């Protein structure tokens, strides 16, 4: 089946489709699209091996704008279409593009299962904490008290933390980034693509129309380094624009922000270990403004992906029973003759 392909030197332009991009001016989606188009050529995967699958929502317009294969599918169901595709064509580089509504509301169930199965694909969840396409209702990630067109007195619901959901679902790669920090976003997307198995990336995205203030100082180039901590495997958890703050584990085994100086030094800080689920769980609970928002790769472990598991089972079944023989299978059941 496989043909020899001539390695192509691809550039960002090769991934730009001929469609007019139709998001609101200033929407964070533009930056994510640009980073994706910039990152993909670096992966060395031919365009015809790349598929973008989305559900419904503003983010789900993404496949139209990528000059690759694409499916604009059903609200919330992209993970299932992607699973079907991944197991039948394991050669593909599959990207599920979803949002906080599509992925965590109507599609919450599917999202859990695609992650726990460790299907070899990448999920990028654009989190703007509001329903944009239907013009401004609260979403499952909306802050408690958020006033929208469907919560005139503020929502009374506890928001979901997408990273915590991914960890609880045993995703083997969990990361977070933000639309406005393009360099960081590009690095995270590349790391997600490189990971074998399921990659889950939450991207904080600015809906300038219906929830423009959501990310506050995190979107501000000058201030953001004081409000985000860039996790690095094997490195102490230092942050701040002057790199003078850090996160340590206190006596109650809880994360605590400390000022580096006389009382605490870098040696007192947590050394991040992306293989530790316990650490990832704890870090995922760190929320702005009480903590710097954890950004980067939160968890990465290696485990057999679903297709590998399936192939191994197929091999084992054939080794045990030989190639499939339908007749033999019929005969294998309890049979008796009616006379």
């Amino acid at each position, binding site marked *: 089946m496989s043909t020899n392909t001539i390695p192509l030197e691809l550039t960002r332009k090769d991934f730009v489709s001929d469609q007019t991009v139709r998001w609101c001016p200033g929407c964070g989606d533009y930056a994510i699209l640009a980073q994706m188009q910039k990152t993909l050529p670096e992966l060395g995967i031919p365009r015809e091996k790349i598929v973008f699958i989305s559900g419904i929502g503003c983010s789900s317009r993404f496949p139209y704008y990528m000059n690759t294969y694409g499916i*604009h599918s059903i609200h919330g169901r992209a993970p299932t279409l992607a699973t079907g595709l991944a197991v039948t064509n394991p050669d593909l580089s599959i990207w599920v593009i979803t949002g906080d509504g599509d992925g965590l509301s109507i599609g919450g169930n599917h999202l859990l299962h695609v992650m726990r199965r460790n299907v070899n694909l990448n999920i990028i969840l654009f989190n703007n904490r509001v329903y944009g396409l239907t013009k401004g209702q609260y979403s499952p990630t909306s802050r408690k008290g958020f006033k929208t067109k469907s919560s005139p007195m503020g929502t009374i619901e506890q928001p979901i933390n997408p990273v915590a959901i991914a960890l609880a679902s045993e995703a083997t790669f969990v990361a977070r980034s933000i639309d406005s920090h393009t360099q960081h976003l590009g690095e995270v997307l590349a790391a997600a693509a490189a990971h074998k198995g399921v990659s889950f990336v939450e991207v904080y995205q600015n809906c300038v129309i219906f929830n423009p203030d959501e990310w506050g100082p995190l979107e501000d180039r000058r201030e953001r380094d004081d409000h985000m901590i860039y996790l690095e495997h094997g490195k102490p958890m230092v942050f701040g624009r002057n790199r003078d703050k850090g996160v340590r584990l206190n006596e109650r085994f809880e994360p605590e922000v400390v000022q580096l100086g006389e009382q605490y030094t870098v040696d007192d800080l947590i050394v991040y270990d992306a293989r530790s689920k316990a650490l990832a769980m704890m870090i995922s609970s760190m929320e702005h403004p009480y903590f710097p928002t954890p950004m980067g790769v939160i968890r990465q472990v290696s485990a057999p992906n679903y297709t590998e598991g399936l192939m191994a089972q197929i091999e084992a079944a054939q080794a045990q029973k030989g190639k499939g023989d339908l007749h033999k299978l019929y005969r294998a059941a309890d049979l008796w003759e009616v006379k």
Partner: protein
Amino acid sequence: MSKELLKGNIAIAEAAVRAGCEAYFGYPITPQTELLEHMSSRMLELGRVFLQSESEVAAINMVYGAASAGARAMTSSSSPGISLMQEGLSYIVGSEVPAVIVDVVRGGPGLGNIQPSQGDYNQLVKSAGHGDYHPIVLAPANIQEAIDLTVLAFDLADVYRTLVFVVADGTLGQMMEPAELPPMRALRPRPEWALTGKGERPQNIISSIYLSADLLEAFNQKLQAKLALIAQREVRYEAYQLEDAEYVVVAFGTVGRIAKTAVQNLRRQGIAVGLFRPITLWPFPEKQLSELADSGRIKAFLVTEMNAGQMLQDVRLAVGRDVPVHFYGRMGGVVPMPEEIETALAELVNGNGRLPKTILEGKNGHPTR
């Protein structure tokens, strides 16, 4: 009460509130989201329940739960959202709890578009869930009627302990026209079959399961008897200028309203045309259409719909083979203009009951038998 300028989706929502809807559950979907948004503020003011669910599947089952507790409960959605509800719809009918659902239809299949369509006729009338039943389906053609039918929907749901749909489309949902809202009704007491806490009375169980074949058949026979009663008592339709009509256009909802303009224009030219507009899509006014066909006066029927001819089949069944039934439709969110229907009707008149080839083979026409 006096008339005020109302937007369709809001008018339906407010009519539901005034009809005593105690609990609303829904998920945003264009073109019905304003209905949900209106409920989000109105219901709280009145001390009632509003909940934005995580999906349409959740919404219909929340309705099922609230209705089981005896509350007047409703949800609203648009075509793909209604498709998602199918399982819940069937269980609601099987458990005999009342529920009201508003479907603001959009273009399909699949994601289609958000433009007005009547592509849900079959989904609502013929296949709203598995099993042997039809929900009651009410199809308003203007905002006043949408208000009145929404109130009626709650009453019918209660009387027959069944599912009632109000079916509109984006045109009706988004347009504004003067209409009068009904007075605010008091909430009705919880019915005696509802799950209100056993106390001294015998235990109530809400269920749709009948493990034994005999019991299930007995339930189904009871259900069929109920449906027969609804079919006998609840048929509603508008007969417009039918007394002396020789050509009859059959259309429902928005298209019915457009067809009426076409009929008026042709009448001004002295052409004997009339409009038959089913208001209940189920029960379908089969007998009334059949009698009209049997009058011997009608030379042809023209069914017009914003779909490929879904109600057409019910019209044909009712009319039989003696009078020709033709079809003119637009699809994919294209709303027909009165002139188009007028032209089709005029051609029918000129052809003495037959549609010329141009209409039959045009992009919009649909060959009939």
